[in-house]
């Protein structure tokens, strides 16, 4: 790997190496730019990952976050990640595309926010991402028959098969969902051999054979091959500027020692909590007052049931079956829509959900946990509207670096509750129709979205439609924080596509 001196003025420093940072770093390097990626977390090796859920917490962002509001998120295994590859190290690899209607929710419904462009603008980037990282999917996708996937789907596990039955019982269409994993061995350019999915089921604990398409086995090796330097274990905290207010460099801590890297442009890709925290602690790029505002999640209601069969929910790719039939349900009393996906799960994660959503105790609690091997789930991923009370701010508490811990306030509004209730009822009926017992609804939200919104108006957005700060022309943001609306689709594909698009804009700037 090429390295740079701290006194070199590199073309770009990228803070964060996940879905937002890695594609852009690769693209800039590929086009001859000098790039340094600062990543707070370590460099993991795939074979070193462990399915043990407690030990696998090493993949989570571990600087304490404070969770508040009427629906405070229980982060834990739902928290963002850390390490070269970011949250893609422990994400679920479910890879649907954003629905074209979700780009224009406000125009459609008068609620929420429109994106400054439509699907047609993002689609070429989406297709590039899919083809470069490797995505599996069905031969024909019911909601978009022209779409093609390079790899056939992995085998359907018990939950996926059960969800198919549930859909059939209620007349819903279903398919194998798009999954960011490969189902045969390939030579990944600049990386080496990636093996086909072994159906191990531990995607959320880190994929051990390179089957899951992350940044660590795709974009980051490409970035290095083109001369980018990756610096793991580097926590960036101070953004330096000249008298004109332009960024000149970043101060970061590595092994307890402060370092400074000079740069001509800075890209924040630290995720929707750390990016606004960096801007707020440095008091930067906030003339709109919108940094940290418009925090959103996905409504991620789950419904679990117990079956007579031996289900073994830890086996197989966890969430294969999808239906997009609820993207605009006819009987909806909410705007936007949701995707439904089947859920297998590892035992502690499953038990946590059960424990936090019920108050059973004694032998009944033991019996519920003993039902693990007979359990199958379904979960949704649904639109969440921005609300003024949902935001990331700086708390009064300091972390180990002496920086204020982030406070994340999250409360459902009427739209989220209506969607949750709709899904809880529908998914319960699906399970009932095929004989599931002990049906359990889990009310939960997932993902961290918004907080540095992109849009055309500098007064109400942090970055322009290409990801560039309205206030500082050599500051760009490329991560989940720039989403104007949550949209129903699981986000990683759109984050990576936007990342490539922002890289294009930087190259033209």
């Amino acid at each position, binding site marked *: 790997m090429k390295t740079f001196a701290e006194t070199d003025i590199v073309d770009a420093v990228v803070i964060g190496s996940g879905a937002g940072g890695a594609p852009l770093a690769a693209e800039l390097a590929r086009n001859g730019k000098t790039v340094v990626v600062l990543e707070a977390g370590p460099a993991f090796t795939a*074979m070193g990952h*462990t399915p*043990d*859920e*407690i*030990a696998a*917490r090493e993949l989570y*962002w*571990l*600087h*304490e*976050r404070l*969770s*508040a509001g009427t629906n405070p*998120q*229980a982060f*834990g295994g739902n*928290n963002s990640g850390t390490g070269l590859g970011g949250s893609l190290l422990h994400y679920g690899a479910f890879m649907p595309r954003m629905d074209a209607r979700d780009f224009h929710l406000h125009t459609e419904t008068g609620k929420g926010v429109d994106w400054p462009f439509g699907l047609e603008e993002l689609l070429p980037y989406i297709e590039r991402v899919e083809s470069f990282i490797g995505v599996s999917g069905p031969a024909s996708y019911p909601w978009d028959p022209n779409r093609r996937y390079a790899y056939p789907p992995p*085998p*359907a*596990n*018990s939950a996926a*098969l059960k969800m198919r039955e549930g859909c059939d019982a209620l007349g819903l269409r279903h398919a194998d969902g798009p999954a960011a994993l490969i189902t045969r061995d390939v030579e990944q350019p600049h990386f080496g051999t990636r093996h086909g*999915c*072994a*159906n*191990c*089921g*531990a995607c959320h604990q880190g994929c*051990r*054979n390179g089957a899951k398409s992350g940044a660590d086995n795709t974009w980051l090796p490409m970035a290095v091959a083109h001369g980018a330097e990756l610096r793991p274990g580097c926590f960036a905290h101070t953004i330096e500027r000249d008298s004109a207010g332009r960024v000149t460099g970043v101060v970061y801590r590595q092994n307890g020692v402060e370092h400074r890297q000079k740069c001509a442009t800075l890209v924040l890709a630290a995720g929707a909590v750390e990016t606004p925290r960096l801007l707020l602690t440095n008091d930067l790029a906030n003339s709109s007052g919108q940094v940290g505002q418009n925090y959103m999640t996905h409504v991620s209601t789950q419904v679990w049931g117990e079956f007579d*069969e*031996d*289900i*073994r929910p830890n*086996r*197989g790719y966890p969430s294969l079956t999808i239906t997009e039939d609820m993207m605009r349900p006819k009987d909806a009393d909410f705007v936007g829509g949701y995707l439904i996906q089947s859920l297998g799960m*590892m*035992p*502690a994660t*499953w*038990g*946590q959900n*059960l*424990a*936090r959503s019920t*108050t059973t*105790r*004694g*032998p009944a*609690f*033991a*019996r519920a*946990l*003993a*039902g*693990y*091997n*007979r359990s199958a789930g379904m979960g949704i991923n649904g639109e969440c509207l921005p609300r003024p009370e949902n935001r990331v701010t700086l708390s009064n508490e300091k972390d180990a670096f002496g920086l204020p811990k982030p*406070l994340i306030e999250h409360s459902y509004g009427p739209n989220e509750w209506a969607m949750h209730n709709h899904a809880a009822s529908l998914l319960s009926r699906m399970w009932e129709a095929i004989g599931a017992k002990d049906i359990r609804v889990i009310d939960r939200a997932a993902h961290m979205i918004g907080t540095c919104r992109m849009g055309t108006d500098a007064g109400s957005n942090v970055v322009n439609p290409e990801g560039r700060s309205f206030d500082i022309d050599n500051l760009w943001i490329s991560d989940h924080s720039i989403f104007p609306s949550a949209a129903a689709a699981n986000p990683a594909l759109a984050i990576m596509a936007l990342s490539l698009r922002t890289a294009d804009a930087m190259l033209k700037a």
Partner: protein
Amino acid sequence: MSPPPDRPEILDSDHLSARTRDILTSRLSAPETHPRTLSLQAYAVLDALLPVLLPLDEILPPGTDINMTARIDAALSGPRDGWRFADLPPDAKAWEAALLTLDDVAAEQHGIRFIHLAPDLRGTLLDALMAGQIGLDRDGRLTPPQIKRWAGDLRGEVVDCVMSDPRIQQALGISSSLTGGDTVFQGFTEVGPDSREDFEPKATAPLAQMADSRE
């Protein structure tokens, strides 16, 4: 060193990586010193609370003790998972305060300490705690809304401890640790219903045998 008598078979599977085997094996022995985090008083309350919250006698073989109290107490001083509810103090403090609140409420309501209460009265207090009906508004204690929040943390921590224990995994027939070894990463060939592979454990717990008995 001879292996502990209740060494679960899954630990000897070649579908386990060396790292995962080490992690699971370390859970077989109780932490050497305890309490490590909590005061003696709070530790005793936790110890009296856990069997009421989650009895394991119908899951584990007779005489097996997974040392839940000591392990949870130790875990509270170890690496945490990166978040907490904003309306609770940091984890170790919150646990101490919650458990002492429970002890004080027991003394107020029944005139004796929590550990001396009969199991059904301990259970009733635990129900009240989870419903946010008890709590104390004074320093070093938790208010009813706080203690209700903490009840979620308590339940979550207990489940983490239980479901990550190799003896529990063995007893419930859970194969989640057996994703693959170091030289061969086997994964699973069978992933559909009623298709346990030979290397996967069969449930031995009385509570979990229903599914396996159908094979």
